[in-house]
Structure formats: C-alpha cells, structure tokens
C-alpha cells in the first residue's frame, strides 16, 4: 500500500494525517493499516457498520487511546511521539462533542462552557459570561445559562455539548454520533450548524456517524471501516463512493442495502 507519508508531503492542505494506524485492545486487533488524510476545512465522516471500531478510531484521534502502531499527525507533528506539553498544545485546538453529550452534571450550562474558558484564556469573568452567552445563542440555547444538564432535553444537551466544544474556537471539531437520538428536524438543524461552522470559521470537522442523510448532506470526505476484514475499505467523497466504489459492501451500506 502506498504510504501516506509521501502523500502528506505533496498535500499542503493536510490537517490530520493517519498513517499505518493499527488499533488494538491487548492482543485483539480492532482495525489495522488505516491510512487517510483529512484536509483543512473538510467535513470528514468515519463510517462503517456497528462494532467496526468507528468510536475507537475517534478515541485514537483525540488522544484518549494510544495506537498499537502507526501515527496520527496534526499538521506535521505526530501526536503520540510528542511530549506531554506538546500534546496539551495540540489538544487545545480540539473541540469534542461526545455521544451522550458528556456535560458535567454538577455544573450549569454556563459553568460547563465557562470552565475551559477560565482555564485556558486570560479573559475576565465578565468577558467569559459574554462568550458563554454568545456560544449558547449560536446553538439556539440563549437564556438557558442557569440550567443544569439534567433539566433540559436530550436534543438540547447535544446542542449544549456543541456549545462547550466550540467554546475555545477550536480548529478541529470531533463529533461522536451527533444525531443519535435526535428527531429528523433537530438532526437537520445540527447538520446545518456544523456546515455553518465549517463555512464561517473554516473549522475542520470529523464526524463518526452512520446516518446516511447526514453523510451525504454534509460530508465531503470519508473513510469506510469494515468489521470483517478489520481494515478500511476506502476513503474519499461519500457520494463518489456510493456511486462508483468497486466494493459491493460499500455500495450496499451507502444505498441502505439496495444495490
């Protein structure tokens, strides 16, 4: 297989590069030989059937789990070969929205968003309060500052989690199953919001999902993981993969089983 290191050098827009990545829990290999490039401003979809390791791949990219072998590069620095301080600096550019929201339940929405701002910026409390209000109004939750996560609905929790993810104006936004548990309209609104964030701020966006509507509506690049062969089958634009992939498994997945 052609190594991405060579590809990476030829592609100045590469933001995240995954190189020969093998993921394993102990001796049990989940995925091997993953190679793909995420360009600046991409909306990149990680897709595949249930249990193929999508969320695990995301956990490797956001620095929660170290790879069995291979590298994950952000711009030109390899995350797992960096010092702890360097890793911390790389992570400052991340915004992450976890599958269940993962809002801190003992803090109000305002405190949830203010915590990273207070920790990583020199803003005064009054400025932080304004940033919090701005972020909440971006996700349509202005006025909910004093609510605790348990007091709002699941869809609102997802949006609040997004507000927390964009608190520090991240360059890369990671989403784990953003539309799981949302109604079609909320799910569509979230897609629009993701698109808007990319278009307005140029944020690179990485999404784990198997929601076909979202995949085609917003994704312009993707990787397809396969549970049987335990490796990636293809990478590229999801629409192209749907129509032109030589692999019947991918066409079937992207056409809801109708080949």
């Amino acid at each position: 297989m052609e190594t991405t290191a060579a590809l990476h050098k030829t592609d100045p827009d590469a933001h995240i590069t995954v190189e020969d990545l093998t993921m394993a829990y102990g001796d049990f290999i989940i995925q091997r030989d993953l190679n793909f490039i995420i360009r600046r401003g991409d909306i990149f979809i990680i897709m595949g059937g249930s249990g193929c390791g999508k969320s695990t791949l995301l956990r490797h990219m956001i620095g929660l789990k170290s790879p069995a072998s291979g590298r994950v590069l952000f711009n030109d620095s390899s995350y797992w070969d960096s010092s702890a301080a360097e890793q911390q600096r790389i992570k400052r550019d991340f915004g992450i929205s976890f599958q269940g929201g993962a809002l801190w339940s003992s803090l109000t929405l305002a405190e949830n968003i203010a915590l990273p701002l207070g920790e990583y910026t020199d803003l005064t409390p009054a400025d932080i309060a304004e940033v919090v209000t701005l972020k909440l109004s971006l996700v349509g939750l202005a006025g909910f500052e004093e609510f605790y996560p348990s007091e709002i609905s699941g869809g609102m929790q997802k949006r609040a989690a997004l507000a927390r993810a964009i608190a520090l104006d991240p360059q890369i936004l990671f989403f784990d199953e953003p539309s799981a548990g949302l109604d079609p309209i909320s799910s569509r609104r979230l897609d629009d919001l993701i698109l808007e964030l990319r278009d307005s701020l140029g944020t690179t966006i990485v999404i784990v999902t198997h929601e076909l509507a979202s995949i085609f509506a917003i994704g312009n690049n993707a990787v397809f993981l396969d549970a049987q062969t335990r490796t990636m089958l293809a990478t590229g634009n999801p629409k192209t993969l749907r129509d032109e992939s030589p692999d019947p498994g991918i066409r079937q997945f992207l056409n809801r089983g109708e080949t």
Partner: protein
Amino acid sequence: MPGQLNLQFPSPDNLRIVLAGSWLLSDSPPAPDDITVQLQSRSDIHKISFDGSAVTHWDSGLLIFLARVYQQADEHNTDIDPAGLPDGARRMMKLATAVPPKEDTGKHSKHPPLLERIGLTALSMWRAAPEMLHFLGEVTLSFGRLFRGKAQFRRSDLMLVIEDVGPHALPIVTLISFLVGLIVAYMGAVQLQQFGAQIYIANLVSLGMTREMGALMTGIIMAGRTGAAYAAQLGSMQVNEEIDAFRVMGFNPIDFLVLPRMLALIMMMPLLVLYAGIVGITAGMFVAITAFDITTFEYYQQTVRSMAWSHICVGVIKGTVYGVLIAFAGCLRGMQCGRSAQSVGEATTSAVVTGILFIVIAASLLTILFQQLGI
C-alpha cells in the same frame, strides 16, 4: 496589528463602524464604549452599518464585540445592516440571533433570601417523612408477597447479593472486630490488674463483644460497605432508567431489587455478628495470654462461665435490626436518587449517614429495652 475601530458618518442618520486588524479573543479587542456614547447622545442615528474589509483575523472576539453592538442597537431601536461584515462573521451573527433568548425561565434568583431558604428546607424535610413512610409501606407489602410466595425476583440475584454481603465482608469484619476485641481487653485489663482481677478480662470481652460491640461494629462496617453499595447501584439504575424499565414491563422494582437486598442483609447480619463475637473473644484471649499471664484453659473456662444464651440472642437480635435498617436506608436513598451523576453521590452519602443514624438510635432504644426486660 490588534483590533482597531473607527466611527464614520456617511450620512447624518447612518453610523458606520470601520473595523481593522485582528480581532482575536486572546488580544482583548476594544469595547464598543464609543458607540454607546454616540447612540446615547445622538437620537438621529437610525442605522448602523459596518466596513470589515480591513479585518485580518477574527474569532469569538469579534463576535462578542458585535453581540454588544447588536444589543446596544436593540436598546436604541436602531437598525443593523450587517452587509459590510466579513462573510463568516455575518453568518455567525445571523445564527446567534436566529433564536431569541428564552425568558421567564425562573432561574435568575439563584440565591433566595435566608428566610426563604429556611422555609424551603423545612418544607422539603416535611415532605421527606411521608416519602419514607411510603417506601416503608411498599417494602412491607413486598414482604407480604414474599411470605405468600408471590414476590417476583430471581433467586440467582439473591445468591449474588448474599455472596457480596456475607463472605466478601469477612476480611474487613475480621480485621475490625479483632482490633476492637484487642482494645476492649487491653483497656479493661489495665484497670482490672490493679485489683489482681485480670481473669475477668474474659467476662468483659465476651459480654462486650457478644452483646454490644460485635453488632455495633458490624453494623457500622455494613452501613459503609453495603448500604453505600445499595444506594449507588439503585441510584445508577435510576439514572439509566432501568428502574422505569422494570416498572413498565410489569415488574415491581421493590420486589425485584429491594427485596433480595434486604433479605440478604437480614440473613447475613446475624451470622456476621456471631462471627465478629468469636473473633473479638479470640483477640481478648490473645491479649490475656500474652500480656497478663492467664492460661488458655483459664480464659476458656471463665468465658464459658460468663456466657449465657441470652447474651448471644441480644447481640444477634441487635445485629438483625441494624441489618434491616441499613438495607432500608440504602435502598430508600437509591430509589429516591435523581437523574444525574451528582445525585448518585448524594444518595450514597445520605445512605451511609442515614444508616449510621438509624443504628445509633436503635442501639440506644434496644439497650434500654433489654435492660428493662432484665435480659
């Protein structure tokens, strides 16, 4: 170049804000104070427009500035023409103003006055009493179903809880009761030695451990160990809606979850109390033999002479009562748990506090009762 701002008046009723440089949050961009002054002093401004062509970089810093300007404009009934803003910023502001802020959420008075807080606390305590009685009633009904053979729960669940409550508690019960036996023997012996009555260490330890200390120490260990575990288990199930799932599918969660836990503790507590007594007496013997020149046989004889079945019964009855109270407190707090990680912590704390409180009250009452009965 950090963010800069200039005000222009292309026409008397039009205020144009010219933005330049980099508007990053980290550079603390300028505040819109001049704009506020202009809007307050000149009532003929009807429109605010922007010229953002010289902005080099921007992030939330620019958006916060714009949010303030928008708010000022709103207060002075001035129109905003966002056409001149950087493209992305214009769209973000459109997004931010798309949904009006929710008002009347009833969340603004975060700290009610002292009297109000006292009142609220009193009311919530008043409401807690019937809740506890309600739970007591449900548990009683559940035991009624158990005796009629109609309670639904899985025997294997009961066995698992028994294993966790009984055998798995042995190491900590051994350690604590051995040390308590040691302390009682040593404290007593030092006093008794002054009268040459060291042999009565045996009476002191055997009576103390079987009647009071065995049950009390085991009770406190189990409140911290098992009561807390019950509250945390049931509390997390409450958070995951597992208890609702039981209800909806026609299982009584009291029968299914609370009953086996109470039964397990009621069955195991007497055994643990007996065991704690034996360990405590052994510890006393160890002290007597090693430090006070009493032979094993003398100690044994004296212990047998001082013991009576009634002492053992008193200890076992106390232990069983404590077991009921611990299981009740743990399950009650678990079932009352709210829907967040925070409330699981509160439920666990409250289970231990309530359990120990119940134990101390019960210990006092039972001691007086047995004294009056002359047992």
